[in-house]
């Protein structure tokens, strides 16, 4: 289309905050809280209060039209089922497990011998039983992607991590480069594809170095650096950069599956040792944290414990003048109480003081429209939403929005325009029903 040039903008990364320390292990918290919620789905608990659980034991699942399984991330006794703060900004039920510090493994966790003879179906079953979900933030059960009937020829591993502050994927890859390539290879086999492309940001030369050492062993893996812009980690952008093709709803349409790099690393463990998704990397960062670090911690760990490991908040931090953000700073969610529990989609917790000033009105400069990666006109959507004009919202293609937050980011008048657009999407969904 005319003047369709906008393809993201460069945002100050601030990733060096969290790169000072290597990935730190925090594997033995005193207790964990496994949320009984996943992507608005309520999970059925499979254990009772007082039960003794082992690492990797199934403790909750959801089985109707999709299957999703949660495992115990530490061994110990189930203490209670109580409400905790979840990264969706709500209080949800969670299973509290007290750690017995014995680290007993479930019987199912053992070396798999016939790794190279596994069929496609078996690999997908492993993915489902290990409860592997998209660890980039969406939390979509990965196996559903692989059950596609389309002919897949490329698997893209998304190691771009375009959001500022976040370094969990980067440090996870630096620590386990071989596991990444192994997991990617299994994913390729699970998809029936013949090529794996690892996409990373062009300035992350360390990822390139680490992976280049191994590419002789994995000749089917290709490296593909992408530009340092936001939102370069967006699925459509990566697919377009790597294959040159575009799609409308799912990348499988053009024979591509995109997975997060952390998912690939976890999947390597799942295939070889049958370890389910029980721990993930998480960045504790931001200007409000004394000594930002990235941890590798079991799911259900309290974030406040991790923040203590980082030396707590900086001195003189006024909580009412700071945001406690679950997720990246562009798409994350502000949490009111710092009593958050880690789950499989939470890649970072950012504590960041903010400033307020006299916000003027929207002046209609059109920067939001210039910068929109899907060529929407956010100001018009905002007006249509304020008039509750569902038809116009539909005409303006509001549901195309993927809430990258760039329109609010560039707004010189500090208008909450991303919020208006997402409310517009809600209204459109309600109106359509």
């Amino acid at each position, binding site marked *: *289309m*005319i*003047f369709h040039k906008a393809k993201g903008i460069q*945002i100050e990364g601030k990733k060096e905050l969290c790169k000072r320390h290597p990935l730190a292990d925090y594997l033995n918290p005193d207790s964990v809280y496994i949320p009984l919620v996943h992507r608005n789905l309520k999970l059925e608990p499979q254990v009772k209060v007082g039960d003794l659980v082992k690492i990797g034991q199934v403790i909750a699942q959801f089985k109707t039209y999709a299957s999703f399984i949660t495992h115990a991330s530490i061994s110990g006794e189930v203490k209670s089922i109580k409400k905790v703060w979840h990264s969706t900004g709500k209080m949800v039920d969670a299973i509290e497990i007290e750690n017995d510090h014995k680290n007993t493994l479930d019987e199912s966790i053992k070396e798999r011998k016939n790794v190279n003879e596994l069929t496609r179906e078996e690999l997908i079953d492993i993915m489902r039983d290990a409860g592997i979900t998209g660890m980039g933030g969406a939390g979509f059960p990965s196996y559903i992607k692989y059950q596609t009937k389309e002919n897949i020829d490329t698997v893209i591993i998304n190691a771009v991590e375009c959001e*500022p502050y976040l370094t969990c994927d980067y440090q996870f890859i630096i620590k386990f480069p071989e596991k990444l390539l192994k997991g990617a290879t299994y994913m390729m086999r699970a998809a029936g594809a013949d090529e794996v492309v690892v996409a990373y940001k062009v300035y992350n030369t360390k990822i390139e170095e680490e992976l280049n050492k191994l590419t002789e062993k994995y000749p089917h893996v290709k490296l593909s650096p992408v530009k340092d812009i936001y939102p370069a980690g967006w699925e459509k952008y990566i697919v377009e950069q790597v294959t040159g093709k575009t799609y409308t709803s799912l990348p499988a349409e053009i024979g591509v599956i995109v997975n997060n790099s952390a998912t690939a690393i976890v999947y390597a463990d799942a295939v070889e040792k049958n370890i389910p998704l029980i721990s993930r990397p998480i960045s504790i960062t931001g200007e409000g944290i004394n000594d930002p670090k990235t941890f590798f911690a079991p799911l259900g760990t309290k974030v*406040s414990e991790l923040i203590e490991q980082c030396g707590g908040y900086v001195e003189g931090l006024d*909580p*009412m*003048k*700071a*945001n*406690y*953000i679950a997720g990246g*700073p*562009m*798409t994350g969610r*502000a949490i*009111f*109480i*710092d*009593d958050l529990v880690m789950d499989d989609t939470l890649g970072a917790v*950012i504590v960041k003081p*903010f400033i307020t*000033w*006299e916000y*003027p*009105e*929207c*002046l*209609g*400069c*059109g920067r*939001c*429209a*210039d910068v929109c990666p*899907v*060529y*929407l*006109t956010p*100001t*018009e*959507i905002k007006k249509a939403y304020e008039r509750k004009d569902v038809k*116009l919202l539909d*005409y*303006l*293609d509001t549901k*195309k929005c993927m*809430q990258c*937050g*760039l329109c*609010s*980011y*560039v*707004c*010189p*008048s*500090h208008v*909450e325009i*991303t*919020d208006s657009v997402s409310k517009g999407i809600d209204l459109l969904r309600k109106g359509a029903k």
Partner: protein
Amino acid sequence: MARFAGGKAPFLRISDQKGKNTNTIMRDFLIALLPVVLFSWYKNGIQVFLDGNINFFEMLYPLFLIIMGGFLSVVMEGIFFYVTDKKNNNLKSISHKLTTSYAVIPGIILALLLPIYTPIWVLMVATFIATIIGKMLFGGFGHNIFNPALLGYVIVGFTLSGFITDAGGVFNGSEVLIDSYASATPLGIFAQFSNTGEAFSFATLVEPYGNLWNFFIGTIPGGLGETSALAILIGGIWLVARKIIKWYTPVIYIGTVFILSWIIGINVGESGIWFPTYSILTGGVMFAAVFMITEPVTTPTNPLGKVVFALFLGTLTVLFRFVGNLPEGVATSLILMNIFAIPIDTYSGIIRTRGFKKPGLSFASVLFVIFIIIVAYTIIASVNMYTAFLPIINIWQVI
């Protein structure tokens, strides 16, 4: 456990950084107006003073008028805030509101549009119309439909122009002594020709004022700020360099006026390139192109809308100027297009996302058909009013 503040994603904002918010945009607009202000002071004050036609205090008058425009507009908005909000009518809260209302800019632009010898009371009326009626009644900054300065200028031009002419009008102290400057601005002379139906030529339109270079530099009679294309271009380049305005909006507008004027010139037997050049250098086309049609509040927001807006506006300017009987085609067409900025914004927003598929196609074709009709009418009607209506009359006779 601590309780943290809420907020909405994204938590990073460019506007929180220093020098990247709306205040900066407005400051840059003011800086862009500086060359225009300085040139108009030079032309109407310093140069005339050096010629020995006015005294020292009269030399300061153009500057005084421009500053007065900005000052009056701020004062009027302050009074408006004082009167309408009884609860917070202390000085502190009013000055807070004024900092995010940016009243200075319409005031200064208004003063730049008016002729040099505008009586101060006329300026007061104009600023009242501009800031109170044109801006505050619509809901303040960001909600106005009309460009406030332009509304004040147009209404004063329609109603009080006699008082301005009596007080001295457009001619400064030196220009009033030159005999060849008949009794009007360059476009005024053109209007006389088109009223009587006589043929015009380079000798009658341009030569009384020297040559086209004088038009570019701006040493011709006219409103305070609108004469100098050079000073306006400097301001425009600053605005484009600071990424406040898009370069293509002024270029498309000027280009449309240029091409249509050329076609009209050929139609009436003046095929020289001087005629379209003369057309874009007079009557505030340049000033409007840089400072008015790029004004963010009253023009479309998205890039496609800006293009459509500039195309329509250029056509309407030519239509009003050469076919209709309004020498100041720019101001009237811009006021008209300010209203249509709202549907154009919506339409172009739809076309931008949907492309030429359904429903984008229908909106695109509506805009396209209207545009073609206006352009065709402008070109046909420029030859003769009667011939433009001839086909319509014929159809009527057939029926």
